[in-house]
């Protein structure tokens, strides 16, 4: 199962591209995805926070990920 992850703000700078495609077998949960990405991009671990959004909602670590989900990495927001 492959995943496609949208990157915003500083996460796009860290990864160096606006989206990331993970080929199967990809991480099955939000928590596993974060572990995988932090292992590959250690700078992500230095952020104040890094959440995962699934279909426009903040997702808890145990949420399962599917190939049709719209997944995004959410570094610390700073609107306003």
């Amino acid at each position, binding site marked *: 199962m492959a995943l496609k992850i949208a990157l*915003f*703000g500083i996460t796009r700078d860290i990864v160096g591209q606006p989206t990331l495609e993970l080929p199967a077998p990809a991480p099955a949960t939000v928590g596993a995805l974060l572990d995988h990405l932090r292992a590959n991009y250690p700078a992500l671990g230095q952020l104040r926070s890094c959440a995962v959004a699934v279909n426009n909602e903040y997702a808890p670590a145990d949420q399962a990920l599917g190939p049709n989900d719209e997944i995004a990495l*959410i570094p*610390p*927001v*700073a*609107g*306003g």
Partner: protein
Amino acid sequence: MTPHLSITDQPIDVAAALAAVQTEAAGAVNSFIGTVRNQSGGRRVRRLHYESYDSMALTQLGHVVAQAYAKWPMLEKVAVVHRKGTLALGDVAVVVAVATPHRAESFAACQFIIDTLKQVVTIWKREEYEDGTEWVAAHP
């Protein structure tokens, strides 16, 4: 009442946002306008860049406003407009406007919306200084 929520790359029309909430049923309108300051943490700011994950930002903004309506049932109308893209000093970055029958609630609801917006809405700010740029709040 359907709130007036948008994220735009065009200059914000503050008067239109205020007009969107005014009604003869609500005598109190509180608004918060965030503009681009010329300094941040002691550094001179030259301009700002806002990036938005629009679909999620609008979803989360909808949640924030729904929470406000739940907390203040007397809330009549709400408008929130956030700018994205490159902004110059003094430009309006965000407007929140709320209308309620009585004034204390207009202050409380407006402050709740801007405070919560800043915590959950997926917009990122990159400040540009004389000597570089930085994503605001990214690092501890």
